[in-house]
């Protein structure tokens, strides 16, 4: 097969299209990363050149190829207990605040998006079991979502490398995982504890039913969005939260830079964002 070329014009065309579909903006500095993956998919689909492939992407009714491409364009590397101080904040400050205002016996609802391959939602579940006495009094519902269907399948399978679990205390590794020879599988109980779903934060249709969460973890995702998409994502999360619900972002992200919807809450462990109480 002749070498497949992605021209600057192709890159620009693709960049604009992918942004509209996913809210993810690739800067020109990501050109190598993007080109490499486009060529990979052109070869896999045997569409021979960018033009044919792009036509498939745009007009394929099932959207299957767009999903395949999205899967390889999104970066999914993470590990258990990443930015652990936020989990400490969850159990020591956020959940006590949530519980103190709770007017019913329904479950406390937590949404972790993006799920990536599951390390974050499972870390939350483990943290609650290990470090939050309230787990004995309250039901908790953890939903975790991602745009990438392949990582969702990985998350559901719960299989991890040594690298993923390297920051876990040995005691927790032994308690919640079993060795599989070349890795570690998280226990069935924890796999059953998290509901993994596919969501595109840039698409209102997929987020419409996500409501009434007490806490949302949305860490290290908005850094891939441009300003206007970040505003859109902030609005989506706002509507997914109950009044006075909390959002935790990654340590380098700040909601205040692109949205004034939230107020900042400074706890001892971390700075998080809170949807204000309803003003009717």
């Amino acid at each position: 097969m002749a070498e497949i070329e992605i021209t600057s014009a192709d890159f620009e065309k693709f960049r604009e299209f992918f942004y509209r579909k996913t809210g993810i903006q690739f800067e020109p500095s990501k050109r190598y990363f993007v080109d490499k993956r486009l060529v990979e998919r052109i070869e896999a689909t045997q569409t021979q050149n960018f033009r044919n492939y792009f036509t498939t992407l745009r007009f394929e009714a099932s959207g299957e190829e767009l999903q395949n491409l999205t899967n390889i364009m999104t970066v999914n590397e993470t590990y258990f207990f990443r930015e652990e101080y936020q989990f400490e904040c969850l159990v020591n400050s956020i959940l006590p605040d949530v519980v103190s205002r709770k007017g019913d016996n329904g479950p406390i609802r937590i949404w972790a998006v993006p799920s990536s391959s599951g390390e974050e939602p499972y870390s939350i579940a483990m943290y609650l079991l290990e470090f939050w006495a309230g787990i004995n009094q309250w039901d908790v519902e953890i939903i975790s979502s991602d745009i990438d269907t392949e990582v969702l399948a990985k998350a559901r399978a719960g299989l991890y490398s040594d690298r993923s679990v390297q920051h876990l205390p040995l005691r927790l590794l032994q308690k919640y995982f079993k060795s599989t020879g070349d890795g570690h599988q998280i226990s069935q109980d924890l796999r059953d504890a998290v509901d993994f779903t596919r969501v595109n934060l840039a698409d209102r249709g997929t987020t419409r039913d996500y409501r009434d969460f007490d806490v949302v973890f949305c860490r290290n995702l908005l850094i891939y969005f441009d300003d206007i998409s970040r505003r859109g994502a902030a609005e989506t999360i706002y509507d997914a939260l109950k009044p006075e619900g909390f959002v935790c972002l990654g340590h380098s992200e700040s909601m205040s830079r692109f949205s004034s919807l939230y107020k900042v809450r400074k706890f001892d462990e971390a700075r998080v964002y809170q949807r204000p109480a309803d003003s009717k």
Partner: protein
Amino acid sequence: MAFVKVAARDTQQDTANPRALEYDALELQLHDESADVRRWAARDLVDCPSASRMLVGRLHEEGDASVREVILTALTIRGDDIAMTGLVECLRSEHVSLRNEAVEAMKQLPEKMAPIIRELLGDPDPDVRIFAVNILESLRHPEVESWLISVIETDPELNVCATAVDLLGEVGSPAARLPLHRIKERYADVPYIQFAAEVALSRLGGE
């Protein structure tokens, strides 16, 4: 107690946007008594043809800041002439929050704002010109510096020039040095301009 699962919706594909048929329903929802419903209506109207006029109209009546923010985002995403005119009109509003919110929204639109900025910087109302300079503060556009230089060279209003001098100190390059020296001469008897221009010059370097 324990972990529980309540049926969450798992959408395997992105969904179609609202159809034009829903437009009337969305118009009603945009005036619903619940802010939650109004926010969703504003977001759904992004994809409805000719929704900009309705969104602009609602923006000026809307009392809930969260709904205004969503309407402003919807207008910036739409970015058509009516939306842009509506955003600009907010700069003339007596409603301080709305004005500031509109400035923040417009900062997100470098390409669409470029032709409008030139008009705003020539607006007869000095307050509008000051807001235009505020928009430049974080507008990622290659002409920001040249617009600011043009302001300090030509604007007849002291306060507009002072705002631009402050900003040049943050976003300018050595190309702004000469204009800054000239404005110091032009307002030789205004201590604030002397001070602000000196601060800007010291930040710019290049001497």
